[in-house]
């Protein structure tokens, strides 16, 4: 409860007493009732728009859950089993140098953005400088080999798109990392768990508590992002973006906005970017650079993992950095 009070963000309720028991019982009753109603009525709720909404929503969650689980397992393993000294030594002592190294290290985490949020949190808890951990958070989903390979396939005969994505994503991630080194304050970031308390506990206990804790923090917000994105998927009139494609700057902003709203996995976003043929290559690049760094589900997960005070500062800066780097790389390369 103290942590809830300190962060001013967690509205905890009843960790003991009557409410603590009522909550689970109510939730269990709701789930069982839904199962009964669902199996009796076949499809209790119907309609093509609602059906498409449900399918898109569930697909975002189902696609993301394995990556989130992988991410929280890695994060918890870092927290529980990696010695503090090793985590500190893995990166250059020099902070300005640690940022690009962390960005390049992002190439080693094969996954999409859902995995990188808890891993960055784990790195910070282990004493890695926030600037370096945040650079890793931004770079990993965009520059890992799986994502670059998907981009290569999605833009056949256009290797400059893959190169542009690599350069612009790394550039934006490093720029944000350096900016954080200069201006960032650690009190903006709310991290769970005290290092000292954890050190006294058995490692296995620390590990599984961290897995559960990180999953609950990010998972609920993942659902928020999935719901918003699914609403947009079925509610926006089709082809609304087409008329904006002709305009150079507006086109870039429109696709960047779409990337934020659509919440597509970084492993798949290149195929969607390729489908925006009416738009300039720079706009397509912006879609692929912004998406893995800023989207509704990521924002929600960052609020859940690092706190609101962090997200309101971090998200706009990242968005601007991603747009500027896309514009520069697009102008120079595409």
């Amino acid at each position: 409860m103290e942590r809830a009070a300190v962060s001013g963000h967690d509205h905890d309720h009843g960790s003991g007493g009557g409410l603590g028991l009522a909550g689970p019982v109510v939730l269990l009753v709701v789930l069982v009732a839904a199962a009964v109603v669902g199996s009796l009525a076949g499809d209790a709720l119907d309609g093509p728009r609602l059906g498409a909404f449900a399918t898109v929503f569930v697909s975002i969650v189902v696609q993301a859950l394995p990556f989130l689980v992988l991410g929280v397992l890695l994060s918890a393993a870092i927290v529980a089993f990696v010695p503090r000294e090793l985590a500190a030594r893995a990166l250059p002592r020099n902070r300005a140098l640690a940022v690009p190294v962390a960005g390049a290290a992002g190439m080693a985490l094969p996954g999409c953005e859902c995995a990188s949020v808890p891993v960055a949190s784990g790195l910070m808890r282990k004493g890695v400088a926030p600037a370096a951990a945040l650079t890793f958070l931004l770079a990993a989903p965009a520059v890992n080999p799986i994502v670059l390979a998907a981009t290569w396939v999605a833009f056949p005969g256009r290797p400059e798109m893959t190169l542009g994505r690599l350069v612009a994503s790394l550039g934006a991630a490093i720029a944000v990392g350096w900016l954080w080194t200069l201006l960032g304050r650690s009190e903006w970031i709310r991290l769970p768990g005290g290092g000292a308390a954890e050190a006294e506990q058995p490692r296995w206990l620390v590990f599984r508590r961290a897995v559960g804790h990180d999953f609950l923090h990010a998972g609920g917000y993942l659902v928020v992002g999935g719901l918003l994105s699914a609403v947009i998927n079925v509610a926006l009139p089709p082809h609304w973006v087409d008329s904006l494609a002709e305009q150079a700057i507006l086109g870039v902003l429109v696709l960047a906005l779409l990337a934020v709203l659509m919440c597509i996995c970084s492993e798949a976003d290149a195929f969607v970017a390729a489908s925006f043929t009416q738009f300039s290559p720079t706009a397509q690049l912006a879609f692929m650079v912004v998406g893995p760094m800023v989207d509704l589900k990521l924002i929600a997960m960052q609020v859940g993992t690092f706190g609101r005070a962090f997200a309101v500062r971090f998200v706009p800066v990242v968005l601007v950095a991603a747009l500027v780097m896309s514009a520069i790389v697009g102008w120079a390369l595409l």
Partner: protein
Amino acid sequence: MSRALQAILFLSAAALLARLAVTGEYLYYVKPAMLPALIASAAVLLALAVFAGRDAWAEAEEGPDCAHDGHGHGTPRAALLLAVPLLTVLLIAPAPLGAFSAQRGSPPPPAPAPAGGFEPLPAGDPVEVTVSEFVRRATEGGGPTLAGRRVVMTGFATPNPDGGWWLTRMVIACCAADAYPARIAVRGADAPPADAWVALTGTWVEGTGSDDGLLIPAVAADGIEPIPQPASPYQR
């Protein structure tokens, strides 16, 4: 948030993945290759539920402030939303994306024709092709490999808002959130109900596909029969 509540949230996430994996409904949402990852994740989440349930039991016996506690209090209420995906598949019958999405989406340009042109279609009359393969051969290659060949394709019916209907199949790269439609305009056959699955035999209408700017080729139907929805409704 109490440990017991946490246990149920882990359990509902595990149950969601387990149900979709067991019923095969996961194919409505993600690619077939995801199955092992879904099963592994369900197992991890189930283990978390068991541990949280055990802790809840211990707390109930020893009181909430037993020595090894220290985490878990301060879980955001948003975590309750983890039950929503399971509620969704329980209340809204899982179904693949259908005509509603096929009408709205716009497909990307098909992958360019392979260097040296397409391989000829395999022997057979009619020869089985996928909707997306048919579209690609008609729009990118100019269609010489389709000319004069009877083909049979499976897909669902989507009404064309401008009249007539399309034989459609949704194509996904990763999950259903990135799905786009492959569409073929059907000539010479009455429209089945929207979302009805059919096997359609017919011949490419020469010249259609690359000429109209919409990249929707046409097929002249000479046979159509209803089929059950395939287990794997999306194509690559």
